């Protein structure tokens, strides 16, 4: 379980806050989507969980342990992370990319290779074909699958995903979302997923946390949020796309 208690982050010594007084829990096996427009503090929140960014105030607990007491490098190796820009290492083969965390934690070579092949298969990429290739030889969708495979390599309990499908075309994104849902069902990971895309949030989330200007507007299941928006902002945030969608349907 991940628990944030009164977490704030200021990058300018308190003059302004990227994240202000944020508190929520992520239950075991749950997928929590951090949703908000750009600059709302969702990526900052995500990065504080594995200490890529340190909070200015408040505490973050992982399974009851304050993360600030944990060694950051080993903490990060325990948590799978899928990056906004994919962030594959261009000088490493797909196999090496997928097996990077196992290599860092010192798995033997055979086990690393087996695991990489296993994950490529899981992602629906033929291992013999893809393992020796370099990232630039893959399409955007394939690269993002590798990004997910890399995050899963040591079978971590937690996954942090930072707009992993943001740069993909609509069709590919939809495919990957469906794949992620299937994976989720099979692997039972606890996932914190950042997006600005309402439909992505509704598709993937067990619960959604809506952020606005660094503050938490509402946390709840998609149903609760759609039916009982806690603030005007939330109502507006979901209202606009609904109107657009209605207009779009009309046109069809």
């Amino acid at each position, binding site marked *: 379980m991940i628990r944030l208690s009164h977490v704030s982050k200021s990058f300018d010594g308190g003059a302004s806050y990227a994240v202000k007084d944020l508190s929520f829990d992520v239950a075991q096996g749950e997928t929590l989507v951090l949703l908000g427009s750009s600059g709302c503090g969702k990526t900052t929140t995500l990065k504080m969980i594995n200490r*890529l960014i340190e909070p200015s105030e408040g505490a973050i607990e992982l399974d009851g342990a304050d993360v600030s007491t944990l060694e950051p490098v080993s903490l990060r190796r325990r948590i799978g992370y899928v*990056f906004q*820009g994919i*962030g*594959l*290492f261009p000088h490493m083969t797909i196999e090496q990319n997928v097996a990077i965390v196992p290599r860092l934690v010192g798995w033997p070579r055979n086990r690393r290779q087996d695991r990489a092949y296993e994950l490529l298969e899981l992602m629906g990429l033929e291992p013999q074909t893809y393992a020796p290739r370099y990232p630039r030889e893959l399409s955007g969708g394939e690269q993002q699958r590798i990004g997910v495979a890399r995050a899963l390599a040591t079978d971590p309990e937690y996954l942090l995903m930072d707009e992993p499908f943001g740069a993909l075309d609509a069709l590919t994104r939809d495919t990957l979302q469906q794949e992620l849902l299937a994976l989720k069902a099979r692997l039972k990971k606890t996932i914190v997923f950042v997006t600005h895309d309402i439909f992505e949030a509704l598709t993937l989330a067990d619960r959604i946390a809506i952020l606005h200007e660094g503050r938490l507007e509402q946390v709840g299941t998609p149903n609760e949020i759609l039916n009982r928006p806690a603030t005007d902002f939330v109502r507006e945030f979901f209202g606009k796309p609904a109107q657009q969608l209605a207009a779009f349907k009309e046109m069809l």
Partner: protein
Amino acid sequence: MLAVTWGEFLTSRLHELWLRLGEHIVLVSLSVFAAICIGVPLAMLALRRRWTQTPVLGLVGAFQTMPSIAMLAILLVLTGKTKDIPALIALTLYALLPIVRNTLAGLEGVRADVIEAAHGVGMTRRQTLWMVRVPLAMPVIVAGIKTAAVIAVGVATLSAFIGAGGLGKFINAGLSMKNTKLMVLGAVPAIILAFVVGGVISASEWALAPGRRRRKRGMAGIVMKYLATSLPLLLVAFGVVATMWNPFPKRRYEVEVTYRIGTPGTIRIATKNFTEQFIVGEMMAQLLEARTRLTVKRDFNLAGTMICHEALVQGEMDLYPEYTGTALTAILKREVIADPEKAYEVVAEAYLEQYGLVWLEPFGFNNTYAITVRAADADERGWTRISDLKDDAAELRAGFTAEFSERPDGYPGLQVVYGIEFGSVDDFDPQLMYDAIAHNEVDVICAFATDGRIAAYKLQPLKDDYGFFPPYYAAPVVRAEFLDEHPEVRHVLAALAGRLDDATMQRLNYEVDEKKRDPADVAYEFLVAEGLLKGE
């Protein structure tokens, strides 16, 4: 007036060309290797501690900005050594900037999202550096090394000025003797070497590049890749081998040796950077090779009196030819002594006492300065003595060497003693001075009394009627310590004592300066003709 064809010239120099090429490669490799060992960690430090960036880049930039000759000169003074050490330091300092700058740029230029991913998957700083930054920066780092190596090939040619090895030796000797062939022999291989070095590093970079699209290359492809990767190492290996093993025969002169005297050892002979010194140096070297058990190492063409002198005092060299007048004024800083024998005695005594150096018997010629005019002018205007110039001096153009213009026993003293002030005075390279008077660009020069061009260019030395110029009798100067171990040197070199008068030396100089012959050949022929070596 080309006395030797290119073919003959090349063949006779192959042995040395091979050696110098090897030395050049070794100089460049060692200094670039040192620069990598210093520069890459410096760049990593600058990456980690950002405040060090400005001072680090400023410092290596300053090294690069220093003129090469100035840097070599300063290192010569600082290290107190001639030859390879200051040259290596200078080359290393020059190589630093491209390596540091490129390494830093490469390490910093890695995309931010890749670095974030490295941290995110749980790499430590060190792992991020070595597993991500360094491999991704490699092409940029290698490009820096390439730039550094190519610059080093060029700068290494200059280090011959302080006596280091390499192809610069040819260029330097060519400049000293105004011998175009020798200059070309150094310059062209240096240019080719620069291209080869650049190409070889590019090939290796190509083979090493990560993430290249793999194709089915097969055995041939794999062999190609390994070959390309190891090309720089092969080049270095070639350089090392070339300095130790030479397939080309050394020029050997036929010498009939009845017996050799003394004990085995090595004698290091130095000379200054002009023709006469090379000829006399060769004579001493060949005689010692023929008649003693010593191995002779020639370090000819050192840039001037002070370097030769220091090399002996430091014990880096054992023997070189010096002139009494130079020793008296330039080294001992004493007043001019007009009497040749007195001058020799004073110099010999002071050298032994102050520097532990021994003056052996003089060769016989007096290479003093001679105020020299065109013979035609002298006839026409009736000049025979320096004092005859006094009335016409204001309309005469003088061309002197920079040294003569400065030395108290040069033009400054001449002005005082003779009361002569020339209309204009220009500084010339010693070689160009003779051309200048022959082509009517100047009217008066400070020739050397033994220069072959005095006769060849129809020049007329004027009599030093006030006895102003000190005697410049040449003699071998040798370390006393060395002479104690090898007294046979004194005995063998005594064969040259008094054997070379001014006219003989003029003739020998002329053979080299104007006929472009090799000083070694000229020296050999003289020794044979004199019956000192038994030749063909």
